[in-house]
């Protein structure tokens, strides 16, 4: 099966797997090397040779920022600059990760970009498409928050060009650190007239005549200086001398202090214990690690065919913002689909084969008999039984005040918590059958298929009463 936007799975998460920041931070926080992201080594080697070319040529967020830059004509006279900010954020991420909490999703540019595409632009595009075709529309709860963050990052351009890339982006900081040792750098040649044209066109402020140098850590290889130089005295050439990093001790100590204070806050998992309605996608690793390994990119939500995977707002705590959860009232987990695990770039949702996915217990359906119209109003509804692909909901005769009628019962041993019943319950508003994380299974390794589960599901002699659609002669 293909994802619903038609791109083969292999290319789905390739970008993230080349990202060294994800590799480093997630591996430290998870205490395990994220093998899916090992491709990032190529990018590190390439940066060691060519410098911070990723930021100037590949980064999609950088490209978007550049496009916005082109439309901004007026800026502040004195542009605020805090070049070391990106190194401090990088340090914060690494120290917090070492303390067991990942905050990557707030700063990782590729995750920010992908999430913005998913939560903001994807629903809009699908809606426009649905005006002319029959594609079902999608929506995500509170996507306005993602829009706000995205708009803020782009809005920073009013302060200075590429503000995010120069001052805040931890991936840029990481590439900057590596670029200090890169083989190729831009440097001035003999014959420079110090006309300062290059200094003015440089979008990242890497060129400074005061210091008489081009800072390799800031330079994103965009080539603008080389094009604009009237004397042709800027050249990209080998220069093996590394440039120096200039961090203030006070800033370093503040950053370390902040990580030590903030990281433990994220590790208090009260929300998970209290909620009981936080259903993670099938095959998600245990919660405390899930929050560290998930980069909140939104790939799984975009690929979910029922639109049931929704971004958390506060359901999983503040640090769980934008992590996926199954809101089965919107859409259940299709028994024929395992796409979320296939596209997850860090395997926070494990890549399970289709059959194994159907055996993952995400939770258990609970019937609210006071709301259920088969229980409370003697209606022949039983849509939940009809919707259940595993026959975990059985309709059995039950007499209430003299009326004998089929009423739904959940067999909690078979129920996987897929929520297809909750999605289809025909009563208005809250469903009368809801999924709670009762019996939820989360495994790092090993199969979800057990002999007991297979036997229970295969059992042909199921308890099944004759439907009340039949009139039975006595």
């Amino acid at each position, binding site marked *: 099966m293909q994802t619903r936007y038609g791109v083969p799975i292999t290319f789905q998460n390739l970008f993230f797997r080349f990202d060294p920041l994800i590799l480093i931070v997630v591996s430290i926080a998870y205490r395990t090397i994220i093998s899916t992201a090992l491709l990032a080594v190529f990018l590190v080697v390439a940066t060691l040779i060519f410098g911070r070319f990723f930021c100037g040529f590949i980064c999609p967020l950088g490209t978007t920022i550049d496009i916005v830059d082109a439309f901004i004509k007026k800026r502040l006279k004195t542009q605020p600059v805090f070049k070391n900010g990106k190194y401090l954020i990088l340090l914060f991420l690494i120290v917090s990760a070492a303390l067991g909490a990942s905050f990557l999703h707030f700063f990782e540019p590729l995750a920010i970009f992908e999430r913005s595409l998913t939560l903001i632009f994807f629903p809009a595009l699908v809606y426009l498409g649905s005006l002319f075709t029959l594609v079902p529309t999608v929506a995500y709860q509170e996507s306005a928050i993602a829009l706000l963050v995205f708009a803020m990052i782009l809005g920073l351009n009013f302060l200075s060009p590429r503000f995010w890339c120069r001052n805040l982006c931890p991936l840029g900081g990481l590439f900057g650190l590596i670029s200090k040792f890169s083989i190729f750098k831009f440097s001035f040649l003999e014959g420079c007239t110090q006309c300062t044209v290059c200094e003015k066109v440089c979008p990242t402020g890497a060129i400074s005549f005061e210091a008489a140098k081009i800072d390799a850590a800031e330079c994103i290889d965009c080539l603008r200086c080389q094009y604009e130089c009237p004397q042709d005295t800027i050249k990209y050439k080998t220069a093996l001398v590394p440039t120096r990093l200039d961090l203030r001790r006070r800033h370093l100590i503040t950053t370390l202090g902040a990580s030590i204070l903030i990281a433990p806050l994220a590790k208090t998992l009260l929300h998970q214990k209290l909620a009981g309605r936080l259903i993670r996608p099938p095959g998600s690793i245990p919660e405390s690690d899930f929050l560290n390994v998930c980069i909140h990119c939104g790939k799984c939500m975009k690929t979910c065919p029922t639109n049931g995977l929704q971004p958390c707002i506060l359901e999983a705590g503040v640090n769980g913002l934008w992590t996926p959860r199954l809101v089965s009232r919107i859409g259940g987990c299709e028994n024929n689909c395992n796409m979320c695990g296939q596209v997850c770039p860090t395997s926070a949702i494990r890549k399970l084969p289709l059959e194994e996915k159907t055996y993952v217990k995400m939770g258990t359906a609970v019937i609210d008999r006071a709301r259920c119209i088969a229980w409370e109003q003697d209606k022949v509804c039983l849509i939940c*039984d009809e919707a259940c692909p595993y026959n975990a909901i059985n309709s059995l005769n039950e007499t209430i005040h003299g009326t004998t009628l089929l009423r739904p019962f959940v067999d909690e041993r078979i129920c996987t918590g897929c929520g297809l019943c909750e999605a289809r319950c025909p009563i208005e508003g809250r469903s009368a059958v809801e999924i709670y994380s009762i019996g939820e299974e989360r495994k790092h390794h090993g199969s979800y298929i057990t002999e007991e589960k297979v036997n229970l599901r295969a059992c042909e002699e199921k308890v099944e009463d004759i439907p009340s659609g*039949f009139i039975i002669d006595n």
Partner: protein
Amino acid sequence: MAKMTRREFMKISAGAALATLLPKSLFSAKNANGPVIGVAHGDNAKLVSAAVDLVGGIASFVKPGDVVCIKPNLSFASNVDCGATTNPEMVKQMVQLCLDADASKIMILDHTIQDPTLCIERSRIEVAVIDKKVNLVTLQRERQYAEVEVPGGKELNTIQVAKAIQNTDVLINMPTAKSHSATGVSLGIKNLMGLIWDRGYLHRVNLHRAIAELATVIKPDLTLVDATRALTSGGPGGPGKTVILNKVVAGTDPVAVDSYTVGITHWYKKAFTGTQVKYIRAAADLGLGEIDTSNMQIKEATV
């Protein structure tokens, strides 16, 4: 659905009124005026044309240039062999018949319950799209429906019915024979629920009667039940017990076809007749057709 002119209507009603005046003894030649049921049995590759021939041949339904809507059951993304969805080979044969009868356009329609892409994939219905004239359309959007009044409806006043079938020349209903947790069996009339927008509403009122009332507004010209295999328990979505029958049941009387089909196998390990199924009975009570199998002309063919 071909529209009846006022004159035709008058003729038929006058005839019917006269007929009631005739002494009962005239009908003693049993079955002679009952609805015709065509049952074909045997080789799956020839079933559809054999059954259609028994009820008058395709030419009596599809005129050259007609637009034909075929409504199979594609509701669930279940394994096609379990019987929760119509056998795509049967639909393909029907499409071929319509093409041979020179239909100008053939639409295969359903409002699927699960994700339409998955339902199409799992039901393998695309094998029936054998010609440019054949369109496969899922009815997942409200704008594909238009409101229709239900005259004399007790459970339904109005209902949103697919526009496609309101404008078609011929409607062919192709259900699969399966059990149903709420209605007992799901056959032809029950299959019409895949042509309306809000199915959930029917479950919130008296379901059996509501289904029968639905059949007063959607009247297929031909019903052909795919009973090549029947899902006799665990329906409508499966999994459950599937029995191989290698049969197809055709007829123009929707009540008669459903009522007859109930008797061709056991459901939930018990034998039932059509009169024991509440929705079929409700439809018969509304005068939509013959429920008593002894009043039907049953023609069988083995191929």
